[in-house]
């Protein structure tokens, strides 16, 4: 258990520090001390997400995440939930394109329990996994899909846009929730095989943040996780590389029972972890973040053609990121009018770049978002895992805000010019229908 980085704060890290360690079985460990509140967060990222799924088995990573809460060798039934909550802790798990995470926030004196629980399921899930859990959680996940996607207006927009933005066969073409047919088709053997392939200490990063004694915490981690065997059976995801520009405007019109017309679009943007991605974040914030953005001012305040208009960034490391436009129209306004205004604003922005005031505002907003994210032990634990898993260096989490603040107006303009153009987007248009039955077929996160 050699100590890695020393716990000395880097400039701009807000005084936060993290140390890195590696067990003999390959489990990477990140620790960060903070004694302000008597709580400790445990976060475990497995380097597996929906991008690792194969054809016919979409949704398996997320369904499997549910099965991780159904007991392991020494933990019966819903014991993970019962023991953590009974100890005054909170817990959950989520699945995205690129990873699956599990987390507990505990009162300090209950930290060891969370480590014991995570180790038990990492090492022995298959001792408890059975048909009954599989059939039950299959139904639960299908109801999750109905509740979050199928039974709400515009609920399947993310699924549709993702399918447009990433071509057939691309690992990000489908979203983590998966299709009903594939959820029905998944077998117990699929789940077992998924565990054997991806759930291993050398395919995970464990972070513990908060009111901890690092030496004691490491000793516990060694005790509970140290004997879990590593293995190298992991299959890499299919290649997510794509050209920088889509090269054509992809388009789908959805006629559905929705309350208003909508224009949504996904722009292909630089990969997370690059300076260009941070520049794109600022560009999207100036254009569509908050109540002083260009699109809000134009469509909601001045033209009064939209109820809401905004841009978001879905940061992705293994494929191009997506710039996410969402405009819901006002009254009887038609989509072409909105689309023309959006294109005009994007073209103007690409031609002029952001003003100094816009740069200041966008960077202040993004800085506060980072303060929020690192302001809780659970948020910090998650970010440390994210940078360790996706970029190989957890320390990058503590200085991420500096990199956003370091971006120049020229870089923001450059990424807007190169990427925010009509031939680099997938467009989804909603046209409401009032008939009773409409053609109905589906986001990133999928919680337990």
């Amino acid at each position, binding site marked *: 258990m050699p100590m890695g980085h020393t716990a000395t704060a880097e400039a701009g890290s807000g005084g936060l520090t993290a140390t890195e360690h590696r067990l003999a079985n390959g489990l990477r460990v990140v620790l960060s001390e903070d004694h302000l509140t008597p709580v400790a967060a445990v976060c475990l990222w497995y380097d597996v997400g929906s991008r690792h799924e194969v054809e016919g088995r979409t949704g398996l990573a997320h369904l499997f995440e549910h099965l991780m809460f159904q007991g392991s060798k020494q933990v019966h*039934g819903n014991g993970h939930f019962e023991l953590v909550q009974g100890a005054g802790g909170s817990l959950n798990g989520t699945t995205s394109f690129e990873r699956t995470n599990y987390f507990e926030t505990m009162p300090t004196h209950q930290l060891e329990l969370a480590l014991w629980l995570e180790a038990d399921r990492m090492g022995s899930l298959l*001792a408890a996994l059975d048909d009954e859990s599989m059939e039950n959680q299959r139904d639960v996940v299908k*109801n999750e899909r109905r509740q979050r996607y199928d039974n709400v207006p515009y609920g399947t927009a993310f699924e549709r846009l993702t399918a447009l933005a990433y071509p057939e066969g691309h690992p990000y073409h489908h979203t983590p929730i998966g299709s009903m047919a594939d959820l029905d088709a998944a077998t117990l053997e699929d789940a077992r095989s998924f565990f054997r392939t991806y759930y291993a200490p050398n395919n995970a990063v464990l972070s513990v943040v908060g009111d901890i004694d690092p030496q004691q915490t490491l000793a516990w981690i060694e005790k509970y996780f140290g004997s879990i065997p590593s293995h190298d059976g992991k299959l890499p995801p299919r290649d997510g590389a794509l050209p920088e520009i889509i090269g054509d405007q992809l388009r789908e019109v959805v006629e559905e029972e929705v309350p208003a017309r909508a224009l949504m679009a996904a722009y292909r943007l630089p990969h997370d972890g690059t300076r260009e991605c941070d520049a794109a974040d600022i560009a999207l914030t100036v254009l569509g973040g908050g109540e002083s953005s260009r699109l809000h001012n134009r469509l909601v305040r001045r033209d009064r053609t939209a109820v809401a208009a905004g841009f978001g960034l879905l940061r992705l490391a293994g494929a191009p990121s997506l710039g996410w436009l969402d405009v819901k129209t006002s009254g009887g306004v038609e989509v072409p009018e909105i689309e023309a205004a959006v294109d005009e604003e994007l073209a103007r922005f690409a031609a002029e770049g952001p003003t100094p005031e816009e740069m200041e505002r966008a960077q202040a907003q993004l800085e506060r978002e980072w303060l929020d994210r690192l302001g809780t*032990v659970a948020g910090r634990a998650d970010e440390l895992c994210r940078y360790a898993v996706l970029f190989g260096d957890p320390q990058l989490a503590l200085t991420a805000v500096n990199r956003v603040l370091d971006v120049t107006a020229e870089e923001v303009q450059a990424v807007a010019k190169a990427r925010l153009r009509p031939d680099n987007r997938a467009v989804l248009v909603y046209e409401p229908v009032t008939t009773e*039955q409409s053609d109905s077929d589906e986001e990133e996160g999928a919680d337990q």
Partner: protein
Amino acid sequence: MSDAAASLTSMEFHPQPQPGAARPWAFPAPERGALDNDLTVLRCHRPGQKVVAVEIILDAPLDAEPTGLDGVATIMARALSEGTDKHTAEEFAAELERCGATLDAHADHPGVRVSLEVPVSRLPKALGLVSEALIAPAFVETEIERLVRNRLDEIPHETANPARRAAKQLSKELFPADSRMSRPRQGTEETVAAIDAAAVRAFYEGYVRPATATAVIVGDLTDVDVDKVLAETLGAWTGDTAEPRPVPPVTADDTGRVVVVDRPGAVQTQLLIGRVGADRHDRVWPAQVLGTYCLGGTLTSRLDRVLREEKGYTYGVRAFGQVLRSDGKGNGASMLAISGSVDTPNTGPALDDLWKVLRTLAAEGLTDAERDVAVQNLVGVAPLKYETAASVAGTLADQVEQHLPDDFQAQLYARLAETGTVEATAAVVNAFPVDRLVTVLVGDAAQIEEPVRALGIGEVTVVTG
């Protein structure tokens, strides 16, 4: 299985660890004071919380809205950040965002809440802007028109959302038509359309003044001269005095019945099953919190143990108690409810199981083990729950709004720990009596009406979506 067998044989297992000694934690005690303009101020230093949270509570309750103008409190709250005597609407939004701040203002039954979050270094500037909005809002005619239109555009989106639609129907069912609580908090198409700048200004002049307002400030205040910041911002607010508005008593009709809001083709049924019960001033509150948690607070509570983890009918069903309004003089009430969604074909069986859970609870009561786990969770999660300034400020503001003492939450933890299994059982059984629950189902009537009727849980009526 061979891999698994190999893992099992090579992994070394250890017994479940025992907890160490708990480090004491207490809900923070705010310092209470008042400015020269009679604005009440609660401040609370939270070391390390660099994003400061400010909550301003205005005694501008929904029942003060003039007849036919439901929604004017909402439009006024939104209009506060749409321009002042010094900044246009666009400038105001830009200046706030330049501080890295977020500002939210919304109207609910007890009053209007203005919530600011901002990095501590920019607190003086941001609080200055919020003060400007409270002291000298512009309420420009064209901006109010825009807010009214925007609000009208929002209504169809809310109606389309099954959970929102269910909440609206339940309020309509429970409360008498002349009670403000029976009608949507943010108004209807008809009432919102009638709102103009004069109505907004009249509501502002009637109900927004420092003497009946409270500001709660929470965060790492080490490097902040709070008195100076307050003097230069909210201290400049002037106004007359006013008696606090009396709170009208809450009455509700909880005759057991079912209302189906028809959504042809819906793949799920949204459930909202509720009635009205005790607020935080009632001695039963800690027992009600405890019992309600045991019924439906989490995935391992009684409802989800059956409906989710045994039957797979749902992604999750929760029971909760949410205070509607309180005055500390016996006129308070909370909404007690069970909510969630179940797949359409299993709507009848899910409701049948839900009622069985309630009947079994009434017949057999909670177990001591259930009660113990619930106390350990509710008390134990407090330090996690109140890690951020915003969460502390929110609870302090709720206490102010509900006329509770500043140490209510701190005392609640002690009272929860003292509450026994018998009291918790009695409280939850009284809170959710099987024959006094109004059930709203937003779903496909053609598929669910008959199975629900067959359950005999009350008269069934169907209304259009």
